[in-house]
């Protein structure tokens, strides 16, 4: 079976499951919405201050809920008793990881697509004609969160106390993603310099590439019995 087929089969399975149950999406969207509200209360009600903080609020919500989504991605396998079966198929584990990653990334994109307009509505994210760059920021930033999230979620699925452990492992590592995404988003919504935006997006590209390659290569070691 070709790698691409494996990746696609696994991702498609995850999307179909998610579409049927909407477990993980409902949970993450609600959670992210709550984070928006809480940060709104904590920083508001000054409209100006909220608008200034909006990029930070958006990415805080996305980062927190991405941990939840990553956990669900492997938690659902575990609950179905399918994690073992998944590791025993005659396909390389690298492709299994990329399949799970693609599935998770798809979900995060949906989450981002729902959350960004909501954040714009509540606090104001005036990207105006620069929305394609904002979209690119979302695509790259969420990919970074997904790559790291899925990797650690897979590593910790079989451990005790994994719910508490996962954020501890993920957050120190995704700091560059969060910094770059927040900076790029805030430059885009406040009319910042194009060159600065590009260098932050460059950082995201570098991060995504390094970790996509390294996590994929190293994943089989984490999973084997």
């Amino acid at each position, binding site marked *: 079976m070709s790698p691409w087929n494996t990746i696609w089969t696994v991702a498609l399975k995850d999307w179909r499951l998610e579409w049927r149950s909407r477990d993980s999406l409902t949970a993450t969207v609600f959670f992210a919405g709550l984070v928006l509200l809480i940060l709104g209360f904590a920083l508001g009600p000054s409209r100006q201050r909220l608008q200034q903080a909006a990029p930070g609020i958006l990415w805080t919500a996305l980062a927190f809920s991405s941990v939840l989504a990553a956990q669900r991605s492997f938690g659902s396998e575990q609950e179905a008793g399918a994690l073992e079966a998944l590791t*025993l198929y005659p396909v390389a584990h690298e492709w299994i990881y990329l399949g799970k990653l693609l599935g998770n990334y798809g979900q995060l994109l949906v989450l981002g697509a729902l959350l960004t307009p909501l954040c714009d509505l509540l606090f104001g994210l005036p990207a105006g004609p620069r929305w394609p760059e904002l979209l690119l920021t979302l695509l790259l930033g969420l990919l970074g969160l997904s790559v790291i999230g899925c990797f650690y979620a897979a590593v910790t699925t079989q451990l005790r106390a994994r719910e508490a452990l996962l954020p501890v492992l993920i957050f120190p590592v995704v700091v560059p993603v969060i910094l770059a995404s927040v900076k790029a988003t805030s430059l885009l919504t406040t009319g910042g310099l194009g060159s600065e935006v590009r260098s932050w997006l460059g950082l995201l590209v570098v991060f995504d590439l390094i970790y996509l390659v390294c996590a994929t290569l190293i994943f089989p070691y984490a999973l084997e019995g």
Partner: protein
Amino acid sequence: MSAPPAAQLAGVALRFGRSWVLRGIDLELRVGESVALFGPNGSGKSTLLRVLAGGLAPAKGEGRVFGFDLRDKLSVRQHVHLLGHDAGLYPDLTAAENLRFSLALHGQQGEAAQAALLSELGLEAHLGKRVRQLSAGLRKRVLLARLALVNSPLLLIDEPFANLDADSRELSLEVLSRLQRSGKTLLISSHEPELAEAVTGRSLRMEGGRLVAA
């Protein structure tokens, strides 16, 4: 040169944390034979099956599956299918989707050949239903269908008769003996000797992580 045996273990030992679960297993399965594995719960049956499936690496000892070293996990996994008691059907996929997913990851497509088998198992009417809505017996049949459809030559079956009603037991026995006739190698673990013996030629007994005389 004769073909290598389906599975061969020499001095395989494995531990979880600080306790040995397998304590030196020597085992040979010839191609086409079917063997029953008995023993009380916690005697290491499931662990042994997982070692043979390429899921757990032994701490000591050597093993081969169809001539492939157990360390060559991808090759081993290409020749083995494990039906665990934690069976791994996704509750929100339909029976058909579950089957298609497993077969796809085994690199198999082809649905036409399945029709006869599925009707024999009485599954056609249920293929479009989500696994969540199926009874335990029907779920077992889905797993049996998967077992019969996967083209791995060595099948490892963990507790196929646990928690089954009489009809499903009958069906399980039928499917297993048919698989045996079709030339597959079977290793079936169970704690109910009479049932497993009905389909197997030879039986082994495990106790405390060792194979003992049956």
